[in-house]
C-alpha cells in the first residue's frame, strides 16, 4: 500500500489511528499495530509477510540468546546466526540475479557455458530496510548498548511498524524501546498538528514537486536517443530534484505518521543540497542509512583511526557496500565507489588543511559532484551513463529546445529554489496560525486531487 494512495489516506490510516488510540492496554495496542502493519505490507504481496515474520523471529531469538549469555563464543555464534540469516535472505532476493548474471558473463567470456541458473526472483518490497532495522538490534545487543526486547510483540511491532516499514527511516531499537515502554495514551493537539504537518508537507513534496519532474526526467534517462547538452542537463537536474523531493517527502510522511501514533522517528534529511562538502552531504542525505553504515561498517573497519590510506580504504569499502545496498547493479556499485573516492579525497584535503573560503563555492562544487553521481545512480547501464556524460559535456551538440516544456523548466526552478534557499521541513517553525492551517489544507487538497496520477516512491525499489 502506498502512502500516496486513496486507500491509504481514506481507508487504512483513519482505521489504524482509530484502533491505536481507542485501545488502552499496551499489549493490545502493539498487537493491533503489528497486525495492521502486516496487512499494510501484505496489501502489496501477502506471500512475503512470512519472510518478514521469519526474519523477525530469528533476530528476536538471537537477541535473547546473546543477551542471556556471558560466553563470548555463544554470543558471537548467535550474532553470526542472525547476521547470516538476514544477509542470506537479502543476498538471495536482492543479489542472486546480479551474482548469477555476472558469473555467467565471465564464464561466457571464457568460452564456458552459463554456470548458474537464471531465476526470476521478485524483490520483496522494503527488504533492505527491515533487515537493516532488524540487524542493528542483534548487533546492539551484542555490543551491550541496548537491552533485548521486552517481548516478541514489542520486537515484531518495532520491525513491522508501517510508517518506516517500506522505505525507512532506518530506525534502531534503541530509538523505539523507551517509547514502546511508555506508550502515550492520548495524542495532544500540538502533536497531532505536527504529525499532520509532516505528513501533508511530505505528500505535497511527492505529489506536487517530485512527480511533476518525474516524467521528463525518466523520458530523458530511459530513451537512448541523442538529446544534446541542454536537454541532458535538464534531464539530470530533473532527476536530482525528483529524488530529493521524492525521498525526503516519503521520510517526512513517515515521521508524520509515526507522530500521529505518538512515536518519534529520527530526521532523515537535512537540506542535503546545501552541503558545503561531500562529507557534509552524507551527514544530511538519508541520514539514517549514513549513520547505520558509519556505526556498523565504517567504525568496525577501523574508521579514521589509522593512516590516511587505511581511512580511504575504509571509506571505499563502506560506500561500495552502501552503493550495493541500493541495488544489485553495477551502476550502484560505481555510484558508491564514486562517493567513496570523493569522501576519501575530502578527508585528504581536510587533513592537508585546504579549505574553501567561500561557502557558496563549496556548495556549488558539492552539488555538481552529487549531480554527477546521480547520473550513475539513475542510468540503467554504465554505457548509458557514459552517453549521458558525453551529452552533458556538449559532445553531442546543444540539442533541440523544441521539446523542452516551459512548465518543466519552471518546476525545476521552483524545486531548486526550495532545495537551496528555503528552510527544510524540520527547520520550518510551525505556528498555530490560521494562515498556516489553511495553507496546509490547500496543500492537502491539491495533493489528494493528484493521487490518481501518483507513482510509487523511488526508494521502494531498494
Amino acid at each position: 500500500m502506498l502512502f500516496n494512495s486513496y486507500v491509504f489516506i481514506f481507508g487504512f490510516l483513519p482505521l489504524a489511528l482509530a484502533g491505536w488510540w481507542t485501545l488502552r492496554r499496551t499489549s493490545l495496542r502493539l498487537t493491533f499495530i503489528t497486525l495492521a502493519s502486516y496487512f499494510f505490507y501484505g496489501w502489496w504481496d501477502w506471500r512475503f509477510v512470512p519472510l518478514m515474520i521469519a526474519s523477525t523471529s530469528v533476530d528476536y531469538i538471537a537477541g535473547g540468546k546473546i543477551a542471556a549469555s556471558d560466553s563470548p563464543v555463544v554470543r558471537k555464534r548467535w550474532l553470526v546466526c542472525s547476521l547470516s540469516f538476514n544477509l542470506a535472505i537479502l543476498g538471495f532476493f536482492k543479489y542472486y540475479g546480479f551474482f548469477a548474471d555476472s558469473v555467467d558473463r565471465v564464464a561466457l567470456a571464457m568460452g564456458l557455458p552459463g554456470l548458474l541458473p537464471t531465476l526470476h526472483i521478485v524483490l520483496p518490497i522494503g527488504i533492505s530496510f527491515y533487515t537493516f532495522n532488524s540487524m542493528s538490534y542483534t548487533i546492539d545487543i551484542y555490543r551491550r548498548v541496548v537491552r533485548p526486547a521486552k517481548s516478541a510483540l514489542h520486537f515484531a511491532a518495532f520491525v513491522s511498524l508501517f510508517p518506516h516499514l517500506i522505505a525507512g527511516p532506518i530506525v534502531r531499537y534503541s530509538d523505539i524501546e523507551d517509547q514502546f515502554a511508555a506508550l502515550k495514551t492520548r495524542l495532544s493537539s500540538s502533536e497531532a498538528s505536527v504529525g499532520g504537518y509532516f505528513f501533508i508537507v511530505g505528500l505535497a513534496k511527492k505529489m506536487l514537486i517530485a512527480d511533476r519532474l518525474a516524467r521528463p526526467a525518466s523520458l530523458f534517462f530511459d530513451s537512448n536517443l541523442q538529446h544534446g547538452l541542454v536537454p541532458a542537463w535538464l534531464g539530470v537536474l530533473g532527476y536530482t530534484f525528483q529524488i530529493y523531493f521524492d525521498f525526503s517527502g516519503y521520510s517526512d510522511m513517515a515521521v508524520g505518521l509515526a507522530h500521529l501514533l505518538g512515536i518519534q522517528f529520527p530526521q532523515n534529511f537535512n537540506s542535503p543540497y546545501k552541503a558545503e562538502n561531500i562529507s557534509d552531504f552524507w551527514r544530511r542525505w538519508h541520514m539514517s542509512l549514513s549513520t547505520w553504515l558509519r556505526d556498523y561498517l565504517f567504525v568496525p573497519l577501523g574508521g579514521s583511526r589509522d593512516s590516511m590510506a587505511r581511512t580511504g580504504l575504509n571509506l571505499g569499502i563502506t560506500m561500495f557496500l552502501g552503493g550495493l545496498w541500493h541495488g544489485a547493479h553495477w551502476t550502484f556499485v560505481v555510484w558508491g565507489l564514486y562517493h567513496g573516492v570523493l569522501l576519501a579525497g575530502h578527508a585528504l584535503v581536510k587533513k592537508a588543511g585546504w579549505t574553501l573560503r567561500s561557502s557558496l563555492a563549496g556548495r556549488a562544487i558539492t552539488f555538481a559532484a552529487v549531480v554527477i553521481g546521480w547520473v550513475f545512480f539513475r542510468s540503467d547501464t554504465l554505457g548509458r551513463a557514459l552517453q549521458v556524460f558525453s551529452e552533458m559535456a556538449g559532445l553531442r551538440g546543444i540539442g533541440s529546445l523544441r521539446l523542452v516544456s516551459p512548465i518543466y523548466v519552471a518546476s525545476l526552478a521552483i524545486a531548486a529554489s526550495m532545495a537551496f534557499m528555503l528552510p527544510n521541513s524540520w527547520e520550518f517553525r510551525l505556528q498555530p496560525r490560521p494562515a498556516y492551517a489553511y495553507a496546509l489544507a490547500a496543500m492537502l487538497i491539491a495533493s489528494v486531487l493528484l493521487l490518481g496520477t501518483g507513482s510509487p516512491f523511488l526508494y521502494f525499489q531498494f
Partner: protein
Amino acid sequence: MSIPSQSQAAERTAPEATWARFLSRLLVAGALGLLAVGVLNLVVNPDGIYPVHLMPQLTWGTRPLKAAMLKTIMPPPQALILGSSRVMELPPAEVERATGLRTFNAGVDSAKAEDFYVMLRYAVETAHLHPRLLILGCDVEAFHNQEPPHYYLQQPSFLATFMKQGVPRDWRWQQFTRLLSHQQAELSLVSLYKMAHGDSRPLSHTEPDGHIYFDEWERQRAAGEFNLEREIRTTLERFRPRYDNFTGLSQERLDYFNATLEYAHDHRMEVVVFMPPVHPEIEHGLRAHGYEARKQEVTAALEHLCAAWGVPFRDMSSSQSFGGDDSHFYDGVHYDGKLASLLVSRLLPVSAHAVQ
C-alpha cells in the same frame, strides 16, 4: 534519540487550546475543500458516470450511445465497423456500396482491444444482430499495457457484463476516487466555463448509422480558421504522456483481440483488420516517446494473430499507403470524409471477394 524540534517548539510556544483550534481549522478546511470538489464533480458530472445529470455531458459518451443505437437500429446491420474514434469517420454507406451489406459504425472513443470484444458480443448476444462482416480498426494504443479499461466498462452497464472479469468489485470505490481527482475537477471547470460562455456548439454529431461528422473542424475549415499545425500540437500534448508509460503490449489485450477473432470465427463472420492512418508529424513527435517500437510490436502481433485465424490485415497507418493525402487530417489522428472514403475503397477489395 532525535526528537522532532517541531514537537518541542509546538509544546513550548502555544497553549494546547490554540493548537486544537489550529488542528480544527486544518481538518475542517481540508474536508470542506475536498467535499466541495467532490460535490462539484458529482453535480457537473462531466463524464456522465454519476446518477446526477443536471448538465450536458462534456466528454464523449459513445459506449452507451452506440450500445443503445445497436439495440434499436432497423433494419439490422449486416456489417459492423469496430475501433476507436479514428474509425468513427468511416462511412457505412461506402462499406455498403463495396460489399452490399448494410453497415453500422460501432466505433467508440479511446477503444482498446477489450472494446472490440465487448461491442461484438453485445451486438450478437444483447442486440441479437448477426453481422456477416467485421471491419476492425486497430490503433497502436489498443494494446496499451498501462491504461485501464474505459471507466464505462468498469461499472455495471450493459457492456461491462461482457468483460472477462466482469465488473470490478471495487467499482464504487473507483467512482469515489474519481470524484476526488484533478481530471474530473478540470473537466467540471471546463464544463462550467462552456456553460457560462454559452459555448454549447457540439464538436461532432453522430448519424443513425453510427457515422460521426466532426462539425466544428468542418466549420473552421469553411471559415478559413482551421490550423492543422495547432491541432497536431494539441494532439501531441495529449498523446505524449500516453506513450511515456506505454512500455509494452498488454497480454490481456492481445488475448481480448484473439478472443474477438475467435468469436467472429465461431459465428462465421468475415473479418478485415487494418491499422488506421496517422499524420507523419504525429509519428515524428512521438518517436522519442517509444511510438515506433510499440507500432512495430503491434504490427507483428496483429500479423501473427490475423494469420492464425486466416484474417487479412492491412497496415494503413500512412495515408500514402492507400493513395491518400495528409492534408485531410483534422488533428493528426482524425481525418475527414474524403480520406475515410478512400480508405474504405482501398480496404474492402481485400474482403469483397470473401463476402460476396
